[in-house]
């Protein structure tokens, strides 16, 4: 992949992008959101980048769920997955 010179979108921006994603997903018939969303995307390339990032995880949810099932639905499978993460 090419290196991206743009800084990664801030968490605040990701939260904003996630808000947009849910608004758009929740009201698929609502075309009135379109211009506002496009204006938000166009206002700053970081906005568009943030949206691309949250959308990617949104699209990948089924893949993650499938992996969870593959790892075993039982507590052992989940614990194994969890133990690999640092505690916060």
């Amino acid at each position: 992949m090419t290196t991206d010179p743009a800084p990664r979108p801030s968490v605040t921006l990701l939260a904003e992008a996630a808000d947009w994603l849910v608004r758009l997903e929740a009201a698929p018939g609502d075309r009135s959101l379109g211009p506002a969303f496009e204006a938000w995307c166009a206002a700053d390339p970081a906005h568009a980048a943030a949206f691309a990032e949250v959308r990617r995880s949104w699209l990948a949810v089924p893949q993650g769920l499938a992996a969870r099932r593959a790892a075993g639905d039982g507590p052992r499978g989940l614990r194994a997955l969890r133990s690999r993460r640092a505690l916060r």
Partner: protein
Amino acid sequence: VRDDDPRLKLFLDHRATLVDYATPIVGDRMRAEDVVQEAYIRFAPGAADGVAAGRVAQPVGYLYRIVRNLALDVTRRRQTEDRNRLQHRPDWLAPAELPAPDQGLLDRDETRRMAAALADLPERERVALKMHRVDGRSLQHIADHLDVSVTTAHRLVQGAVLRLTLALRDEDGA
């Protein structure tokens, strides 16, 4: 490739950001790359539009405008093609189909982190996310099911998406 050409240099400087910019409009990175490439052809010296580019006061803005217009064209064209299947989707979500399971969106490590993050989600966020993303339930339906307001249902899904996004970043460094 002559890198003394200022327009090429400008294009190369903005290329990655332009792809990020076009991705949410066209729906995926590969199409975004195509759009950005096509934009350069129009932007480059010698192209009919490129001649005009030499005169515009804001070449960067002009470049973004070309990308945006091309991306919207691509989306519109695809939307026309997919109309029957995706009629209920707004334009910018039209190319929402998932890749085949054997060519998933995430690499192995990301898949593991996504699975772990899903397991770590607060219960209500996981339920809300799954109902909305997988079962296609409305926020109203989720709100009724969890006995919360629609606004809360919205925040639960939003919070889940945000956590998963951050989890995918975890090991990227910063």
